[in-house]
């Protein structure tokens, strides 16, 4: 059967990996290509590169990064961050990315999902959703602009809409759990995973190997993404996978 995927996420700014990466054995811990290879060797099933460049120049550099990564890496990878137009998608996919991830632009211009899906196929279009529980709404609310702006969308409704428009995968980040290391949001992930027909990647809150087991078994996630616990070597992709194998979750 299909295995559950473990996906490290790398933040890239102006062509360099940032955000507290602790890889002392690497010659250059800020080099996206070296880090990508490191995770590939550890058994990562996929990688996500998040472009957090503030400048136009930085975004152009991202294309070079993608080309360099694609030359070295024989596992799939997704690029997200600052993608606003079909042209942006074309540039990144032609440079060798396998999928692009849309977040804010998907909410403000939903046609972009459909345009991307009909041009490249749904399998290339990931819709990333930042979710935060809202007591007033009685549900999770969709946020855009890196979690700064609330929208009127309920997360489950938006996920279903995004899939109807052509999204081939949902990357779901719990803002409530992000950075807390107390576990993924199983309730949120399960609600979305059961509502849509496409794979769901859970993100936000990974703190130990057990959290991965429960997001797959309880949260019904198809894949789980984490950043800091891998970067800070609190655990490794290898450790997560060998634990999952032991408890009977099928992994590669």
């Amino acid at each position, binding site marked *: 059967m299909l295995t559950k995927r473990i996906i490290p996420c790398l933040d890239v700014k102006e062509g360099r990996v940032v955000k507290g990466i602790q890889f002392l054995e690497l010659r250059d811990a800020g080099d996206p290509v070296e880090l990508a290879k490191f995770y590939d060797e550890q058994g990562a099933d996929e990688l996500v590169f998040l472009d957090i460049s503030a400048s136009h120049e930085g975004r152009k550099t991202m294309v070079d990064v993608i080309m360099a990564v694609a030359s070295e890496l*024989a596992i799939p990878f997704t690029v997200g961050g600052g993608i606003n137009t079909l042209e942006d998608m074309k540039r990144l996919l032609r440079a060798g990315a396998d999928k692009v991830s849309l977040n804010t632009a998907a909410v403000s211009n939903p046609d972009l999902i459909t345009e991307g899906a009909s041009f490249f196929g749904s399998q290339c279009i990931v819709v990333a959703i930042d979710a935060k529980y809202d007591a007033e709404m009685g549900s999770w609310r969709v946020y855009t602009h890196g979690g700064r702006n609330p929208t009127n969308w309920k997360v489950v409704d938006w996920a279903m809409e995004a899939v109807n428009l052509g999204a081939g995968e949902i990357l779901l980040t719990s803002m409530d759990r992000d950075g807390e290391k107390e576990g993924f949001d199983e309730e949120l992930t399960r609600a979305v995973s059961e509502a849509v027909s496409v794979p769901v990647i859970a993100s936000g809150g990974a703190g130990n190997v057990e959290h991965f087991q429960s997001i797959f078994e309880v949260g019904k996630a198809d894949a789980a993404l984490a950043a800091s616990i891998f970067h800070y070597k609190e655990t490794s992709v290898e450790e997560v996978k060998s634990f999952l194998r032991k408890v009977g979750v099928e992994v590669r």
Partner: protein
Amino acid sequence: MIGIIDYGMGNLFSVSKALERLNVPYFISDKSEKLMNANGLILPGVGSFRDAMLRLNESGLSELIKRFAETNKPLLGICLGMQLLFEESEENGFTRGLGLLSGQVVRFSGKSNDGINYKVPHMGWNKLTYKRSSSILNKISESHVYFVHSYYVKTDDKDILIASSDYHIEVPAVVGNQNILGMQFHPEKSSKLGMQLFKNFVDLVEERMKLS
């Protein structure tokens, strides 16, 4: 020399990078005469069956592929490229394929025989199960490869089934006969195992060159 068929719908970059890593000389072309002279051809593909066949037919590359297949030189279809080798697809209405292998391309129903809903596309790493021996499987163990597809091949010709994967039904993963081969997954994205598959294809090409 290996030729990669460029018909505007391929994952050309990652396929060519895979060959570069293996130090295998290759060229990318949309010219029939040039492709005909290759020792082996790769037909990549991402996108819809109908669009792909339309482009292949309009450019005359359909004819080239069929002629090439008759020469007994190896031809490898990847993902959509594999599906195109079959007789027909139900994607976006009925479309006729290259007809080099017998079978139809149909959509995953999303519901298993015992009534369980499952996700479509079939996306991620799944394990290969070998169905018969083939040199394309040399030096690799039954391990995981990376799939992304919503349609699969349904065939009654059990002889062409080399390896399969289980996704609520038996999904043909590696198919082929003498010189026509197909992989439903992406070997160029399947890490070390994928690279070995490419290497095996290249070996096959070289072996045929020696024989001819």
